[in-house]
């Protein structure tokens, strides 16, 4: 569309600039605040330009953290978040790729039922199923003991061939517990399924004639073709994992498993004293960095994966 109306250009730019200002202002304040001392921030007016304590703030947060909030350095929290986000993203991609592969390329009993069951879980995000999920993570054998109770067995011990087995295995305060319940993904499975459906049948047949078995076909043909989709999904899922708040808050009590999002919440929620805003903002800026880096690093593939139709 070719338009040549000067006032339209002015108005549209104005709208864009206002929009950008609304988005950028909080980020700017956070960035500026992370370079001041706590006292500067509490006295009006709020500084809008960088102060001189940036290096101190960042060094303190990265090495020692805030003493009165568990005293964990931010590096550990960032590491925890990274482990969690990466495990969730990679786990989700691996599980959903294989699930979609099975659903699209194999004929097995109840195939469509499986697909719809997976699909229905879309309606059950973590927040909805948080209580039962917590129970299962707190003791993996919960479903089994419940089942046994139904049949009249009480207690959490079973004896098989003289061996007594205690049905108690908790995943609280572990990376497994942090990530496992979030890994199954209907969205990603559905996405890959839709993508696999667009891969021409002839390609599969050509591969069969070329002597590629199912797994070889998956590795040599399907995976490389899904590359951009995987990248796009990775970005989305990494950010999803990084931003998890409720779940880690619920299942970790050990300070060494605190993720950065929870960490910031703890820094703000202090009793008796004012929150140390300059340090909170430093933490916030640091917490923002990894997702930003992931987006920037994978930007090209990400966009391609979202828009590409040609195969």
């Amino acid at each position, binding site marked *: 569309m070719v338009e040549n109306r000067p006032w339209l250009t002015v108005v549209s730019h104005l709208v864009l600039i206002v929009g950008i200002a609304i988005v950028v202002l909080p980020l700017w304040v956070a960035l500026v605040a992370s370079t001041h001392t706590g006292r500067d921030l509490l006295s009006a007016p709020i500084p809008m330009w960088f102060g001189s304590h940036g290096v101190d703030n960042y060094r303190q947060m990265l090495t020692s953290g805030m003493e009165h909030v568990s005293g964990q350095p931010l590096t550990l929290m960032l590491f925890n978040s990274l482990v969690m986000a990466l495990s969730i993203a990679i786990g989700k991609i691996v599980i959903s790729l294989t699930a979609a592969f099975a659903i699209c390329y194999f004929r097995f009993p109840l195939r469509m039922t499986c697909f719809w069951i997976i699909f229905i879980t879309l309606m059950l995000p973590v927040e909805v199923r948080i209580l039962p999920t917590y129970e299962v993570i707190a003791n993996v054998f919960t479903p089994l003991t419940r089942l046994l109770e139904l049949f009249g067995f009480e207690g959490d011990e079973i004896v098989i061939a003289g061996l007594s087995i205690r049905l108690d295995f908790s995943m609280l305060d572990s990376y497994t517990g942090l990530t496992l319940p979030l890994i199954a993904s209907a969205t990603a499975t559905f996405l890959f399924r839709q993508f696999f459906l667009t891969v021409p049948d002839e390609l599969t047949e050509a591969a069969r004639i070329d*002597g*590629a078995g199912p797994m070889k076909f998956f590795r040599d043909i399907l995976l490389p*073709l899904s*590359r951009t989709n995987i990248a796009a999904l990775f970005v989305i899922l990494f950010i999803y994992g990084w931003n998890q708040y409720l779940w880690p808050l619920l299942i970790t009590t050990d300070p060494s498993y605190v993720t950065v999002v929870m960490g910031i919440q703890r820094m703000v929620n202090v009793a008796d004293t004012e929150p140390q805003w300059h340090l909170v903002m430093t933490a916030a800026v640091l917490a923002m960095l990894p997702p930003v880096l992931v987006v920037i690093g994978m930007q090209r593939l990400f966009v391609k994966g979202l828009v590409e139709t040609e195969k």
Partner: protein
Amino acid sequence: MAELRISGVEKVYPNGFKAIHGIDLDVPDGEFIVLVGPSGCGKSTLLRMIAGLETVSSGTIQIGDRVVNELEPADRDIAMVFQNYALYPHMSVYQNMSYGLRNRGYPKDAIEERVQKAAGILQLDGLLDRRPRQLSGGQRQRVAMGRAIVREPSAFLFDEPLSNLDAKLRVQMRVEIKQLQRRLGTTSVYVTHDQIEAMTMADRLVVMNAGVAEQVGTPIELYERPSSVFVGGFIGSPSMNFMPATVEPDGRHLRLSDEARLALPVEGRRVEPGRPVTVGVRPEHLTLSADADSALAFKIVLIEHLGADTLLYGSASSVEATGEGGGLLTVRWSGHHTPPAGEVIRLAADPAHLHLFDAATGRRI
């Protein structure tokens, strides 16, 4: 190199639809056989059964001296060229061509040698590092062929390989495929719905209709002695004219209508008088006639100039043509000087080129 033997092959889909009603076919070593027919006639299904991409419901398929019914496609020693080429988009031309060999564990230098040789034959030398999307349609088609020939299989299977190309390229590739097949001497099965492609490429062709092989023969056999109305109408372009007729009491003439009579061909004289038949005559066998008695009055409706010759479409008085032309008869007229549209001319048919079919069954009499 191997012969291909198909005996009593049937295909019934799980929903009960019977796509192939028992086909027997022997393809000798090195023959180029074309399966041709309208869409839905089962030609692709038959090819896919030979390839092993569809299961065989009953009957056997034998390649060389092995019955391959239960073998995986990769173990049948065949190579297939697909309609949309089915090249692996993320692999280079070289990788595309060598993928089958790599999966079979050929040594690197043997693969290199075979791919280079195939690339030489197909003039793909400079393109081995390209991706399929950087190639033109004709080049992609060649790569697909290359992928087939590096395998040096017992049989090539072609599934409408030219239908995605433009008309000019199609003619060119048609010649190339045929030449290549001659040169390699590999048994080939080629599926197409285009009867010109079928006629020009085939050593023998199989005309299929509704899951049945209507006729098997060389292109000329099928052209000169079609075994049914279907084959007669399908082979030849423009297609054969069909008219209902009855055999006269003298047994030597056909009555098309009140005014039109045609002399019967010699071989047709055994037909009992009064029998209703369908008479078929090709557009090129209708000629101008001075004899008012045994000729059709043909009113020209439409003229199509093809250059070397001209097609006249028109109606013959009180003769109802059946078949393609929408109730019109077609006449091929050599040269381009024709009477103007609207004029009535008298036509006769060469009795040697009249085809008689049973009016009810459509089979040749």
